[in-house]
């Protein structure tokens, strides 16, 4: 679906921009051509008018006696012969150049054509002429009933000593000009759909070409599932963003794959150790008859190892609950001082085996908002870890104090400590990926601890010195 929408989005944007651009360019081009053609026509009209006036003036001077009106009436057709073909005189289709002469009061003196609608000057024309200015105008002439042609007129006053001697009016039909402009308009309008179709097809082709590797990638990605993380996207040969994307994706899958692999490996190791004990012990014991107390001991041992496995499995379940955010949360006010005391009491039983004492001290009580079960598992996890890594006969100190708006709980042991380079990773799920060849890690316990602290909007810090011990510091916000 993504492909389609990208393709269509691309195409529509592209075509939209193109159409607007084409329109703007088309209109500019059309106007430019139109102006040029009109300019051309107008300069022709002007030249003709000047030429007619020149001829009249020349004749008039030569005659000397005649009034200008007489001269014009006498010689008019002679003068204009060179512009109008006689044969075309009455055929409107062959309408060529029209020449008309008016007196200073705008009364017609002579006209090469006797079309009544053009014999009189319009009021605008007159006012322009009386201001001694030329006046251009387009007039539609009915050549036959219902058929018109547009003719462009130039009325030019011939002025002598700021007085109008007479007025020359020349006209030329705009047929050629109009045909040219109409054709141009037609071409432009015709070209637009062709262009759109062409660009559209090319656009789709190019988009397809670009998106082809993406399509392939999506096909491969669809086949990649949690159980099929070995599949990789074929890296395209191009050195573009698509290749970058493919490589990034492959790297991501690689990371996922190896961390999934590592998690499974770690878990299987973790479970295999107690299983080895159970299996080995039982096999050794079954090889010969034993006394009842020995069997008892074996069973107790086995139960202990089975509990180890149960703990691993339960931890894993809790992690997955936190991960999928489906963990059950039940917040209420908890009085930390008493709460911690009961946990310390519980944990002291665990410590007895290694003769480790958990000492608890607190200054005034703190009430926080929290989930009792989660908080309990948080502290039990940390304390069990502390006992596990403490040297025998050690002491674990649990101290509850206050810092700003937080209850601050410190848990210090005198154990083996955590190497400095490992400290940043101990709360990670995949901690053991980075770490160590050791089989005994913190398991996933610390990852759960972190999740619980986050759930309570608290903070957890860890300080450690090899062979001196580790201190975990937990900050939990006071209930407001």
């Amino acid at each position, binding site marked *: 679906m993504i492909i389609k929408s990208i393709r269509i989005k691309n195409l529509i944007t592209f075509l939209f921009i193109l159409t607007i651009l084409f329109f703007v360019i088309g209109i500019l081009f059309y106007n430019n051509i139109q102006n040029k053609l009109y300019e051309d026509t107008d300069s022709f009209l002007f030249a003709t008018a000047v030429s007619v006036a020149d001829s009249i003036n020349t004749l008039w001077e030569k005659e000397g006696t005649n009034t200008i009106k007489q001269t014009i009436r006498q010689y008019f057709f002679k003068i204009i012969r060179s512009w109008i073909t006689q044969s075309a005189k009455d055929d409107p289709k062959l309408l060529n150049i029209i020449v008309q002469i008016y007196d200073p009061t705008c009364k017609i003196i002579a006209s090469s054509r006797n079309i009544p609608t053009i014999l009189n000057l319009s009021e605008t024309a007159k006012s322009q002429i009386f201001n001694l200015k030329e006046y251009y105008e387009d007039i539609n002439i009915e050549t036959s009933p219902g058929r018109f042609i547009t003719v462009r007129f130039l009325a030019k006053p011939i002025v002598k000593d700021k007085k109008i001697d007479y007025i020359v009016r020349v006209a030329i039909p705009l047929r050629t000009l109009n045909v040219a402009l109409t054709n141009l308009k037609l071409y432009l309008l015709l070209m637009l759909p062709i262009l759109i179709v062409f660009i559209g097809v090319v656009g789709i082709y190019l988009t397809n070409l670009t998106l082809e590797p993406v399509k392939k990638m999506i096909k491969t990605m669809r086949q990649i599932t949690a159980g099929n993380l070995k599949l990789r996207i074929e890296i395209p040969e191009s050195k573009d963003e698509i290749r970058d994307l493919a490589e990034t994706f492959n790297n991501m899958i690689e990371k996922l794959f190896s961390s999934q692999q590592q998690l499974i490996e770690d878990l299987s*190791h973790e479970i*295999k150790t107690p299983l*080895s004990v159970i*299996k*080995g012990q039982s096999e*050794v014991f079954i*090889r*010969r008859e034993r006394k009842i107390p020995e069997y008892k001991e074996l069973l107790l041992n086995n139960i202990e*190892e089975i509990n180890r496995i149960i703990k691993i499995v339960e931890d894993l379940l809790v992690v997955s609950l936190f991960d999928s955010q489906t963990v059950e949360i039940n917040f209420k006010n908890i009085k930390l001082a008493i709460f911690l005391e009961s946990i310390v009491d519980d944990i002291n039983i665990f410590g007895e085996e290694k003769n480790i004492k958990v000492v608890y001290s607190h200054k005034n009580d703190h009430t926080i908002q929290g989930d009792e079960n989660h908080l309990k598992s948080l502290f039990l996890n940390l304390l069990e870890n502390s006992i596990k890594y403490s040297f025998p006969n050690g002491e674990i100190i649990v101290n509850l104090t206050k810092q700003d708006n937080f209850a601050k709980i410190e848990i210090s042991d005198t154990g083996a400590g955590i190497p400095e380079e490992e400290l940043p990773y101990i709360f990670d799920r995949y901690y053991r990926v980075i770490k160590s*060849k050791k089989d005994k890690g913190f398991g996933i316990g610390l990852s759960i601890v972190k999740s619980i602290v986050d759930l309570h909007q608290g903070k957890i810090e860890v300080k450690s010195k090899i062979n001196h011990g580790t201190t975990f510091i937990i900050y939990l916000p006071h209930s407001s």
Partner: protein
Amino acid sequence: MKILVVDDEIKIAEFIKLGLKEEGYVVDIAGDGEEGYFLAKKNIYDLIVLDLNLPKMDGIAVCKTLRSEKIFTPILMLTVRNKVSDKVKGLDSGANDYLTKPFSFEEFLARVRVLLRKNDNFKNTVLIVDNLELDLLSHKVKRGDVEINLTTKEFSLLEYLMQNAGSVVTRVMIIEKVWEYDFDSFTNALDVYINHLRKKIDQGFEKKLIHTVRGRGYTIKG
């Protein structure tokens, strides 16, 4: 036969020790790589059972170091890792065999026997002195046609004497080979066991096989 078990999982080390002990082997335990290396260098073992993942010094390192110091005691490596590459790494570092946890104890014992048999000292699986026979595999002892029942300790003691048949073995040698590392050599346990052994082997026979060499130790000869 003396075997060193190096494993940081105390429970695993302990059941291996128990099982081996009941098969007549003498077993020392080391809880980490350094201790294992120390014991393997200091004492003479017939076999080392070595866990791959150990604190302080891992199994690979222990193995390599021992081999580089010309200690060629057979090593059976144990690990929870069952990837081929891990096995190859273990074997390449100088281990003779490789077993993944959890393992079947019967298989473990069989592999232990194979490694002990391969050891150059034991081309033969049956030791014979005069008409006394000791089968290293079935752990059966016969004098003539009479089968003799021995405790595991007695068996180990006899085995060691018969391996060195004809020559004198000192008290120290016996204690090193037959007893665990932490055995208190100032007790008279050795004399007690020799007496037991004498009773079971020589009593009722004309020809005595076990002899005391005054001031030096013991010997067995036909």
